[in-house]
């Protein structure tokens, strides 16, 4: 009964979590719709807090029901049997604790993904659309940061993605179980996924790739469950999950179309036309808000992606504008890219693993034999053939239209990890089972150790600095945290994002000038304060004419070697600054 119970339990947990996430996202989207349609500022902190509280009550009720007799959590052991999963579990626990006592990290997270929800809370909705095209993309995953930001808690903002990692692990487990009918093989696959450094880092960051990927695979797992049980609710949940992925980021559009193509084909072949139509509608609903907003703002629902199809020409950016071909985590077009899992070269002489990159030793060990076994199994088993075909097309999409950006290829990487289950299934009946298990455990342990080095170093540096403050963590002057709530701060610090200068409790309102602005513009604005860093002599000369110097020095930081000199100015009219809108 163990296998049947494992499948039933994973399905039950997955469908509940997907509905819970959907409820939260739809409730937050309802606030945004209210603002978009009526102009009432509904997405302010209090409505978000009320929605979150109601959602938490629903979660607690579900958890209590699930822990009761016959519930999906009854008798669930939290200690996995696989050593690889135990090592990974330890790493995740450490990173979770580190996240709870730290502040958001990751370049894109603090430059884009967290600034958006801050902007929404101030505007009371997702309108007006941010002028930066990259900030105008669909943003379902960013909605999950709203509850934590509404209570000014930065430690919890990344936990939406942690939920995404959980969903991904359960989905992979469920799919692998169905393909192999072997619990150990499913655990093997999950260990490969959770041991990927890029997944480990994204779990506790506010990057959106993990969330989109998790919803994609949740959709696949739920649809497979529907195919077995025939319960329509599973198919609906699958379509909603796919829609959540569709509304996360344009890079998921081709994957979603592919996955939905398979779903539609199966439903068509079963003559379930009504269900197919309902599924297509449910797929569109979670992304509708973003398409409606972009249509109103630009006349192109798919903005910022430019559309040129025959006579239809909608404004936006070309695909190439979304990716810097020499950027971090972008693999080259040559064969060198194929060796990446073994070589893990670095782009900017920085660390080789973070939210953008790093597949780790376990993946490097098993990806080739897993792919080989999957290709052989595809010849004999039809549904493995479908999986391999899905992988092949996804890989081509990633290699071409998605410019080989590693994190955009997460669905491809996860499919390869699923092949790992087929590989283990084959080996499991031989005496090579134990050596393979040992290789997986060693690879996962090494990968986790690598991922812990940077957070552990930062943790030690914070102890050494005798400070747990936000200012020391990011390396900016303490005075930024002491400005009156609602202070308007002009950001002239190239390396620091606006999110960092929002200060402790996120009470500052940070503004920037356009790149084309002349130095004289520094004195034209309504800002209360201005911040500069490093060699900015020309700017400082202008600022001294209209503002008084409040701070000039090198702030304390956990990275003292790269910290530069900062200056904070206060404009003559700064007394009016505290009147600006805050949340």
């Amino acid at each position, binding site marked *: *009964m*163990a*296998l*049947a119970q494992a*499948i039933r339990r994973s399905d039950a947990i997955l469908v509940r979590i997907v509905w819970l996430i959907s409820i939260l996202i739809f409730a937050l989207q309802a606030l945004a719709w209210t603002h978009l349609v009526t102009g009432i500022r509904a997405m302010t902190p209090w409505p978000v807090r009320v929605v979150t509280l109601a959602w938490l009550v629903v979660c607690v009720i579900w958890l209590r029901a699930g822990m009761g007799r016959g519930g999906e959590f009854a008798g669930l052991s939290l200690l996995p049997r696989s050593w690889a999963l135990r090592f990974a579990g330890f790493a995740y626990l450490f990173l979770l604790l580190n996240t709870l006592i730290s502040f958001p990290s990751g370049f894109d997270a603090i430059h884009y993904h967290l600034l958006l929800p801050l902007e929404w809370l101030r505007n009371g909705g997702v309108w007006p659309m941010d002028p930066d095209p990259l900030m105008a993309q669909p943003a379902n995953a960013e909605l999950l940061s709203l509850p934590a930001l509404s209570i000014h808690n930065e430690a919890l903002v990344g936990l939406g993605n942690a939920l995404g990692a959980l969903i991904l692990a359960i989905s992979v487990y469920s799919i692998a179980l169905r393909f192999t*009918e072997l619990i150990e093989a499913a655990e093997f696959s999950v260990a490969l996924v959770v041991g990927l*450094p890029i997944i480990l880092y994204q779990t506790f960051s506010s990057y959106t790739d993990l969330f989109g990927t998790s919803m994609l695979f949740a959709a696949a797992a739920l649809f497979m469950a529907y195919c*077995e*049980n*025939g319960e329509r609710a599973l198919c609906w949940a699958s379509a909603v999950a796919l829609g959540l992925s569709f509304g996360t980021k344009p890079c998921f559009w081709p994957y979603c179309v592919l996955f939905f193509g398979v779903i539609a084909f199966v439903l068509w072949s079963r003559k379930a036309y009504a269900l197919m139509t309902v599924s297509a509608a449910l797929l569109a609903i979670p992304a509708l808000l973003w398409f409606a907003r972009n249509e109103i703002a630009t006349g192109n629902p798919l903005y910022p992606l430019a559309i040129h199809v025959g006579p239809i020409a909608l404004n936006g950016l070309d695909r190439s504008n979304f990716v810097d071909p020499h950027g971090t985590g972008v693999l080259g077009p040559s064969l060198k890219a194929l060796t990446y*899992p*073994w*070589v*893990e*070269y*670095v782009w900017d002489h920085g*660390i*080789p*693993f973070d939210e953008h990159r*790093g597949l*780790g*030793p376990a993946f*490097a*060990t*098993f*990806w*080739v*034999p897993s792919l*080989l*076994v999957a290709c052989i199994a595809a010849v004999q088993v039809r549904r493995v053939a479908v999986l391999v075909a899905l992988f092949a097309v996804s890989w081509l999409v990633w290699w071409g239209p998605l410019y080989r950006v590693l994190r955009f290829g997460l669905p491809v990487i996860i499919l390869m990890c699923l092949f790992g289950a087929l*590989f283990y299934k*084959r*080996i499991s*009946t*031989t*005496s*090579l089972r134990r*050596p*393979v298990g040992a*290789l997986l455990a*060693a*690879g996962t342990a090494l990968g986790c*150790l*690598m991922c812990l*080095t940077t957070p552990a*170093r930062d943790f030690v540096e914070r102890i050494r600095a005798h400070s747990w403050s936000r200012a020391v963590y990011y390396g900016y002057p303490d005075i930024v945290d002491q400005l009156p709530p609602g202070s308007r701060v002009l950001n002239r610090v190239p390396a620091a994002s606006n999110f960092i200068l929002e200060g402790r409790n996120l009470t500052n309102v940070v503004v920037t000038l356009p790149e084309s602005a002349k130095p004289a513009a520094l004195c034209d604005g309504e800002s209360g304060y201005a911040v500069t860093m490093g060699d900015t002599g020309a700017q400082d000369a202008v600022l001294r004419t209209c503002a008084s110097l409040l701070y000039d020095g090198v702030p304390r930081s956990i990275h003292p070697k790269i910290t530069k000199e900062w200056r904070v100015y206060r404009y003559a009219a700064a007394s009016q600054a505290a009147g600006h809108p805050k949340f």
Partner: protein
Amino acid sequence: MTPSAPISSADRPEITGTQCLIETADRLPAPNKRIFNRFDIVLFALCCLGLLIYLIESESIRYLALRLGVRH
């Protein structure tokens, strides 16, 4: 019903066809461990080779060695 007899939907009308197969698989005695064949050895060799190349060539390992203060 013997332990290895297949479960049919007629015996258990509340469960679906696939679940019948799964539950039957659960009830079957574990297969004897087969001796690995040549292809299994090739697969295992590929695993070892993959890990070895990673340990030698990966920038991540160099980075980890530097972090842990190991000279090479």
